[in-house]
């Protein structure tokens, strides 16, 4: 079982097709699979649907696929910070499905855990509830949300071992584990691949069973809002 590939293009070979549904990890520009996104741009795959909390900025993250008009639909909780996204959305060129952030995370987790639907109080009495089944449990209303089942998951981790066991770093973990879980195939990009036995089994954040292909590469890791305090 060889999971390690030399490049993002090789790791994605045979996995991409027009009209596919991709789940991507990351929060803002933190912990995004920047190398795999760049490779999807170069592959030219079109009519993509992305489940991703955000849509990147104009020239980084999913934003680079908006510039090339490769994205048909976004399932996201927050899409500010991206002028090209807004332009395409207002022009009717891009479909957008807003999900509350926790609902999006749980839809990914549920899909990966084989749960096709679940009930949540999030969004009851708001536009999010429109058209959805409402069920009362113990006197309180909940809306039904569905699990997400993606064709492909793309995620970014800090370290992996040869078998795809992943370790994330600080808040760069965010949506990566649930995004990884909900795809038929998951490709992970990491900063360092280490030999089996060098990661503490008790400190694995995502077991390699969820990771099918793996690349190591250099990451720009751009900061979106550099904020400091006075010394």
């Amino acid at each position, binding site marked *: 079982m060889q999971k390690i590939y030399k490049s993002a293009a090789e790791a994605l070979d045979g996995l991409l097709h027009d009209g596919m549904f991709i789940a991507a990890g990351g929060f803002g520009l933190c912990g995004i699979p920047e190398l795999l996104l760049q490779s999807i741009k170069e592959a030219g795959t079109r009519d993509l649907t992305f489940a991703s909390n955000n849509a990147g900025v104009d020239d980084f993250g999913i934003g680079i696929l908006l510039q090339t008009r490769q994205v048909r639909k976004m399932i996201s909780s927050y899409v500010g910070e991206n002028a090209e996204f807004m332009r395409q959305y207002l022009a009717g060129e891009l479909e957008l499905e807003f999900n509350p952030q926790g609902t*999006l995370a749980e839809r990914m987790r549920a899909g990966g855990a084989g749960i096709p639907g679940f009930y949540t109080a999030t969004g009851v009495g708001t536009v999010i509830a429109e058209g959805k089944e409402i069920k009362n449990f113990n006197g309180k209303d909940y809306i039904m949300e569905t699990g997400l089942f993606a064709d492909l998951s793309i995620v970014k981790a800090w370290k992996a071992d040869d078998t795809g066991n992943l370790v994330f770093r600080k808040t760069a973990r965010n949506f990566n584990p649930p995004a990884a879980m909900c795809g038929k195939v998951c490709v992970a990009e990491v900063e360092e691949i280490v030999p089996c036995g060098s990661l503490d089994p008790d400190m694995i954040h995502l077991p390699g069973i969820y990771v099918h292909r793996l690349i190591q590469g250099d990451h720009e890791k751009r900061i979106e*809002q550099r904020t400091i*305090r006075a010394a």
Partner: protein
Amino acid sequence: MPWDRNQMAARAARELEDGMYVNLGIGIPTLVANYVGDKDITLQSENGMLGMGPFPLEGAEDPDLINAGKQTITELNRTAYFDSAMSFGMIRGGKIAAAVLGAMEVAENGDLANWMIPGKLVKGMGGAMDLVAGVGRVIVVMDHQNKQGKSKVLKQCTLPLTGKGVVDLIITSLGVLKVADGGLKIIELADGVSEEDMRAATEATIV
């Protein structure tokens, strides 16, 4: 004199109790962290962190360490990291004692609107709908009136809701209002603000 942003934040901090896990929204709520004093408060950042520290010193910024507003921050010796599904699990599951959030409108029945103005650019609700549906107590901090001088404390919200009947306490530039049966109850008035001033500036029913 109505309260300014810092005074509102200081008043909100008085609502927080020792040992609480708390989520602070963007804007005035972020300032609440400056006024918790000696209280042992653990801040949650919904992108996957408990025990959020202050902004870093110059040169110590880490691209892997940001808050829900995407700003660089620091960790503490008690910090724990987790993924987004677990983060919202603890929010939805009622483990977070309180959220302090900004608002565009609040109604006397506790309805909250803070994510969307029809006809204007919509950026998304982020984690706001999950927070108000899940946390123990929702405290809103906002100016009492909008830029046109109209009350933001209403009988009914006019904007699309973030949550229905979710707000517990409203801290505005004029004072503190509690959501109660039949309307809002005045808990406190800002220095120099009379009950008449509060009533005149508030569209919602005051009981």
